[in-house]
């Protein structure tokens, strides 16, 4: 049995110990043995939502073409919201790109169908290991981690000060802090826990000491029907029930909570480095007022967050595997990598990249890096997980608990049944 929900404790040590020069040699080797590169490839990249960052990616194509005369890289941006469906259509319709960025939870789904090419040369400690796990199906790795991130705590220093509380380190402290903030800051809601953000509420199950699913042979089994999971959902919903969260938040997605935070309506938020970047970009004057810290730890003593991000994958049906591999390795070179990740507020998916990023020296951004490296985990890399996520099967039950229409224990039991149905079918 394989366990998930493990912190990636060893990795920080690896990062510190690793010496930068060697790290990008292994992947690059393969490309250089193939002789001269030629031909053209099409590349699908998820739309970063800003023409400026698109420019960074487009520059990869131009630089690569310049370094390898006779090659052509055609980059297309695909919107996140429709990307999964576009992949399905392309695979089922028989015309795939050569290289693509893929959300980490989708990689096993498409790998399971034989659509993705196995990625050789994934060395130990070379990539953020939780993201390698997310790309692994039956011991084989189908995607190279491009960028990664985990959510931490973002809070308004001034509001916490006014309430006379320190940034919470544990669940209990968070509850107490919420109570104090509510009393001392009129009109401010202490927390931005929403109904439609599984990356906020599912990790609380890990923090409570539970699991989301466990692997049994070839298949997965839901672990949600447990007292820990019930406790986690209970705690998460308690903020809403107590009025520590805006009423409308039951139907909010993460950007809505972020908007409320930017407007000073919410004091504490669970968000990633990309969210932090977006907040500062929207209201630069907030930079002084915002503090960051690791996600508060639950009864298990762990403050595990979800490690999300993207893989770079190649398709089996692609006509130019060699050029695709070379382009991926080009994008993963630490200096290239950081041009992109620095803009979007994620961390590089390679350890060399993280080292080059300077995140660990920046006090405001350090918690995001530490969260990812020390206290993060990935969802079960089952081929079915992408579907569970895409269909938002979890939200409905959580919303019911938040609104007090259902007990947390019943909710997680129902979710477990639903998950097992999908895992089996």
């Amino acid at each position, binding site marked *: 049995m394989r366990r998930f929900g493990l912190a990636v404790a060893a990795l920080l040590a690896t990062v510190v110990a690793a010496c930068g020069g060697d790290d990008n040699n292994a992947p690059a080797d393969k490309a250089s043995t193939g002789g001269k590169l030629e031909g053209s490839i099409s590349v699908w990249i998820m739309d970063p939502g800003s023409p400026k960052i698109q420019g960074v990616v487009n520059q990869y194509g131009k630089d690569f073409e310049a370094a390898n005369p006779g090659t052509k890289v055609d980059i297309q941006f695909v919107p996140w919201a429709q990307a999964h469906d576009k992949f399905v259509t392309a695979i089922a319709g028989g015309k795939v790109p050569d290289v693509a960025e893929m959300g980490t939870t989708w990689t096993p789904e498409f790998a399971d169908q034989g659509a993705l090419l196995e990625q050789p040369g994934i060395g130990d400690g070379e990539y953020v290991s939780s993201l390698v796990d997310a790309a692994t199906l039956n011991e084989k790795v189908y995607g190279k981690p491009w960028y990664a991130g985990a959510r931490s705590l973002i809070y308004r220093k001034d509001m916490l000060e006014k309430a006379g509380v320190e940034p919470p380190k544990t669940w209990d402290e968070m509850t107490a802090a919420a109570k104090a903030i509510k009393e001392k800051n009129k009109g401010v809601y202490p927390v931005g826990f929403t109904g439609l953000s599984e990356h906020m509420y599912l990790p609380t199950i890990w923090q409570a000491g539970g699991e989301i699913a466990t692997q049994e042979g070839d298949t997965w089994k839901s672990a949600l029907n447990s007292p820990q999971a019930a406790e986690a959902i209970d705690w998460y919903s308690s903020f809403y029930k107590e009025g520590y969260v805006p009423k409308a938040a039951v139907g909010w997605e993460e950007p809505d909570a*972020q908007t409320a935070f930017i407007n000073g309506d919410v004091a504490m938020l669970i968000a990633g480095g990309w*969210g932090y970047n977006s907040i500062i970009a929207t209201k630069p004057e907030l930079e002084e007022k915002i503090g960051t810290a690791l996600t508060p730890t639950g009864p298990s003593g762990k403050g595990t967050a979800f490690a999300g991000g993207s893989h770079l994958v190649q398709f089996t049906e692609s006509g130019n595997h060699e050029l695709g591999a070379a382009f991926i390795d080009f994008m993963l070179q630490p200096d290239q990598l950081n041009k992109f990740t620095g803009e979007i507020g994620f961390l590089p998916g390679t350890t060399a990249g993280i080292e080059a990023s300077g995140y660990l020296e920046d006090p405001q951004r350090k918690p995001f890096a530490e969260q990812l490296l020390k206290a993060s985990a990935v969802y079960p890399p089952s081929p079915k997980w992408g579907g569970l996520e895409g269909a938002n099967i979890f939200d409905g039950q959580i919303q019911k608990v938040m609104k007090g229409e259902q007990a947390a224990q019943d909710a997680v039991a129902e979710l477990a049944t639903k998950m097992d149905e999908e895992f089996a079918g």
Partner: protein
Amino acid sequence: MRWVLKRGWMYAAMALVALFALFPIYWIVITSLKPRSEIYTRTPDLWPSDPQWDQYPRVLGEGHVGRALMNSLIVASGTMVICLLVSAGAAYVLARYRVRITRILLILVLMTQMFPLVVLVIPLFVTMRKAGLLGTYWSLIITYLAFSVPLAIWVMRGFVMSIPEELEHAARIDGATRIGAMWRVVLPLAAPGLAVTAVLSFLEGWKEFLLALTFINSEERKTTPLVLQTFVGRGDTDWGAVMATSVLYTLPVAVVFVLARKHLMTARTAGAVKG
């Protein structure tokens, strides 16, 4: 006095409907002029304190909205022209030849519209791949036709039927062929219907998103709805850019509406004979 009361009531209704129609559009316009930090406010800001016009050069430059508008224009005009050519004749036949098979054809044409588009996307993609059209303007134009021609046929048929056949007979007695009568008598009288159909088929091509997303595989060919979606990132949406693009996107259509307002909203008198 009664007249004033009655008219006054109509003017009030007109103002109310106009407000309903225009307010969200007004909101889009002012949002495109607001700096990012002022977009969400608790008390609505009905006019930005310091209008910022820099979204517009930004989306036109970095965002390539100009190119996208051109792509949309090509696709939408192509759809409109072919749709009118193809469906005018078909509508005429289905209006004038009333035999059992026309009824069946009408229902069959209607049936093709009854499936939600999402389930048709994959087979349509396969069809386009086999035809070697993926990524071309034609892939979009042809597919949009499949969804605008049926409606166009039904709408135009309704208009053709309201034109008295006696007028055509008169023309034919004067020596016109059937086609000639259709061209000289029916077509001008059906103009309002034609105009409605033209707008409708143009907007089908102008606004469609899902199929464009599925078929288009290069930045150069992206239509405006696709570019609009590019400002929606993972958890961070560039609302200023979305709104500025929406304004640029609505503007050409609005201009056409203004220029063509008389044609869209004024009658040809077909009824003189019918009474």
